[in-house]
């Protein structure tokens, strides 16, 4: 069983069953710590989260994820401007990329002696 789960990599070994066992032990340990915690705290007795102002309808609390990585994409704005232009949907441009790739590979492989 162990050999079917074990993968030998160039620098070591990966055994998912051992990993799962370690995770189970860690979860058990976490549960024991939780179990020893404050027992008077019951589910539902805590204060509702307060969002400044009047309580909003549940639907209005929905946060769109469109801009979750705004910082990342803004930092790479120049890259994205270029790459988005590349994906313009124009078939003649797509064909040009093919010819460009063909030309580069032609030079590398024929003149490079591959």
């Amino acid at each position, binding site marked *: 069983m162990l050999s*079917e789960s074990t993968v030998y*990599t160039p620098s070591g070994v990966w055994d998912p069953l051992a990993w799962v066992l370690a995770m189970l032990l860690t979860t058990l340990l976490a549960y024991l710590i939780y179990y020893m915690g404050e027992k008077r705290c019951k589910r539902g007795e805590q204060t509702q989260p307060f969002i400044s102002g009047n309580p909003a309808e549940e*639907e209005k609390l929905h946060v769109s994820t*469109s801009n979750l990585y705004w910082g990342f*994409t803004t930092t790479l704005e120049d890259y994205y401007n270029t790459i988005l232009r590349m*994906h313009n949907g124009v078939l003649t441009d797509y064909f040009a990329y093919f010819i460009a790739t063909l030309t580069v590979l032609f030079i590398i492989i*024929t003149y490079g002696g591959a």
Partner: protein
Amino acid sequence: MNILDNAPILVVAIPLLASFSVMLIEKKSKNLRNIIALLAVTASMVLTLALASDIINNGPKAYVFGAEAYYITLPSGYSFPVRIIFELDAMSAYMATITSILSFAAVVYSLSYMKHYTSLGRYYTLLLILTAAIYGMEFTGDLFNLFVFLEITSIAACALVAFRVDKGTAAEAGFKTMTMYTISALFFLLAVSMLYGEHNALNIAKIASDMKTGYNMIDRIALVLFLTSLALKLGAAPLHTWVPDAYGEAPSPISIILVSNTQASLYALFRICFTLYGLVINTVIIGWVIIFLGLMSMFIGATMALRQRNIKRLIAYTSVSQVGYMLLGVGVGITTLKKTALIDYGMDAIVGGIFHIFNDALCIGLLFLVAGAISYRTGAYYFDEMSGLARRMKYTTTFFIVSAAAIAGLPPFNGFASKLIIYESVYRFNPILSIIAILISIITLANFVIVFHGAFLGPRLKKSEEIREAPDIMVLTMFMLAALIILIGLFPGFIVKNFAQPAADALINQEQYIKLVMDA
């Protein structure tokens, strides 16, 4: 007659015959049409698995059409093969196994997902033709037949991408895909004709044998044409631009067959590099070309996915990025073919790349099915329009978590095992490449965090109060792929030892491939 002896042709013929019969049977009964389609892919899958087991245990086999016996590759009096030959080794069997699983999943899922559509006879006809042609690409030992099967996959795939004629965008995507596939096929045919003119043969083993004694500029130019045309067909950057349109607009079960179609082109690329050309090429230059294509695919695919709001397009870009990992692993392996580094880490890099093909097929396949289940219930693909689906679609949510975690390379799923092998072996070759690969995995995870947070978490929307779990058949299909992901994740050693390693051994063993045909 031993059925296993004729399995190579049966695997292709059964879906092909079924593809034409479903149109006729549909006139009598729609249920019978569905049953025939399902039986065809099931029979092909069973035969493929039996064939794979036979090849891995007993070695490669050739299947000759029209010969006195299927194994007589050279007709009497001839010193070179003239008949059409299927040549199957562990690599072909590995790829066919993946195709069989994906085609089975596509047909089962379609039974429920597509039932509200009309013209389903044509749909199943095209799906089965596509399946048969993908098998053909993986089995053929002949360059011209490789071109023919490549063309059949292209025509069937484009028609399926444009199947939903109610959507103008689907027709546009189908047209774009058709144009790009045609350009690819045109240059592929040009390469085949150049080699035919040069070597007076179309059989891969015969041309490979000839090249060993005389490798010239014509062969080099043909290699350029093969590399570029197949890079386009497999969606490697910068020739990937048709992929998000095709995958995004095709019905979800077709998207997963398109994954298999792409991987068959990847197989063809590897077959040409390792088996047709082998050691006659400058392996360092060709290896670096493939590594560079892989790096661009990984980076452009993952970063473009970050800007998508349509789940299917996001998955499509992720699929481009995953192709990059396979190219990276195998590219590193090619650079080491003539060096002792092949034993040190090159072989591991190839095994990692090949293992990742299987994992990518399952994970990307499952993600497309999840996207299909969501659109089936919500009618939307844009995750900004969704919220709180985890409360309504618990099984689908679980399948999404499994597939997203696996493709991002989180332990203990299957994607982690193959990526770990790639990271470690590539690190020995060039640490920077390995670091880039790890960073791309982090971006992949970030991509799916957006979808998970946007579509599955959050409050319930009034418009989605009627939403419920996907139909049972769709859930069952997704469960099948999720179970395979978890099983392979927990027992990666089984797949590496019995499938990926023999496939990698077969791929680099050019001599064995040539001998099977030329020494018969």
